[in-house]
């Protein structure tokens, strides 16, 4: 399986996540999965400005040329997009959210009805499944984890996909690898 990991760890003080992901990548590769990992903090990616240029000027591509194009390209060619972040103020990092916002070139502005709701139609025939790896902080509780899961379930739905799982870094690497291999 082709796996694209977005590491949304914003700084060196939250290193535990980087170590976890390094170990996870190695374990996944040992299981013959192909893994591409982006450390988002090392990429140059601007905040979305809401111009909708990716929908109405240069369809499918952001008008701002930065590293987000690389992430979009890799992600849409993957089978699984693994979003990883520490939980900060009850939600994944601003860094990860910034990059999530810059993925909208992958969908189409036209509307479609899906499960009784208005959503956007697909631009591509195939999208990766989503999954979340979250590093809990002292103040993180189960309600936070539930809110994050519900929100990303909807994000997955808007990407014509589904949320495969949400796990915290308290889960053993072996268990996450098994979960991914069973998708």
């Amino acid at each position, binding site marked *: 399986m082709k796996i694209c990991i977005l590491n949304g760890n914003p700084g060196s003080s939250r290193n535990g996540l980087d170590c976890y992901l390094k170990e996870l990548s190695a374990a996944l590769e040992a299981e013959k999965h192909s893994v591409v990992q982006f450390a988002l903090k090392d990429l140059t990616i601007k*905040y*979305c*400005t*809401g*111009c*909708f240029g990716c*929908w*109405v*000027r*240069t*369809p*499918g*591509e952001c008008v701002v040329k930065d590293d987000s*194009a690389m992430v*979009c*390209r890799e992600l*849409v*060619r993957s089978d699984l997009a693994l979003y990883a972040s520490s939980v*900060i*103020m*009850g*939600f994944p*990092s*601003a860094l990860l*959210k*910034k*990059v*999530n*916002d810059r*993925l*909208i070139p*992958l969908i*189409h*502005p*036209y*509307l*479609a*009805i899906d499960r*009784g*709701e*208005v*959503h956007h139609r697909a*631009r*591509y025939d195939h999208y990766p499944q989503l999954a979340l790896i979250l590093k809990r902080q002292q*103040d993180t509780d189960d*309600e*936070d984890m539930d*809110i994050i899961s*519900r*929100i*990303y379930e*909807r*994000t997955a739905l*808007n990407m014509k996909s589904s949320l495969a799982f949400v796990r915290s870094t308290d889960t053993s690497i072996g268990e996450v690898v098994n979960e991914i291999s069973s998708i």
Partner: protein
Amino acid sequence: MKLAVFNGSPRGRRSNTRILLEHFLKGFSETEGNSHEVYYLNLVKEQDQFKRAFTEAECVLLAFPLYTDSMPGVVKCFIESPEPFVSRKSNPDLGFIVQSGFPEAAHSRMVERYNEKLASRLGCCYLGTIVKGGAEEIQVQPPQMTAKLFTRFYKLGRVFGRDGSFDQSLIEQLAKPERLSPIVLLLLQLLRPTGLLNFYWNRQLKKNGAYSRRFAAPYLEK
């Protein structure tokens, strides 16, 4: 009342959020002694100023468009900056406006839950979340189509300026439709092939000479 307003739209001063806020603030200002200041969160380098405004306000209104089912990145960036203020005594009351392009309010209900949790995490009194769908086109709609919407925001602001709380019945009216009825959904399905529903996007695609490339899938090419 001293109100700090944070406009969380990535479009800043050119946003639909600004238009809705203008009507709200017009009503808010009708009560004597009320004052407000608006801060634009897309100016991400001004976090120190935002932080100061947050701590000095009696009330904070955080307004943003729904971006990929939650708050835009610039808003999350702002939310991370008051991390040191968690449970500080005398944090301001905190209310929210979430507007989205989708017609139904249902899309914004999960981030509404997040908002309430955020207020409790900060130790702020939670004033509520005003949810409004179908707001993407308000800048191009003729005045008769937006009059009712703008009046409701004005009234919400007026009640808030006077009582310091959101009027629940106005919030309920603004949130309609929560979901589209089966009949409307069927109608939309029937209208889809006509392209009428895509008018807003097609007009812009054509203006930009991009209409023929509208289904481009560039990241699978080459």
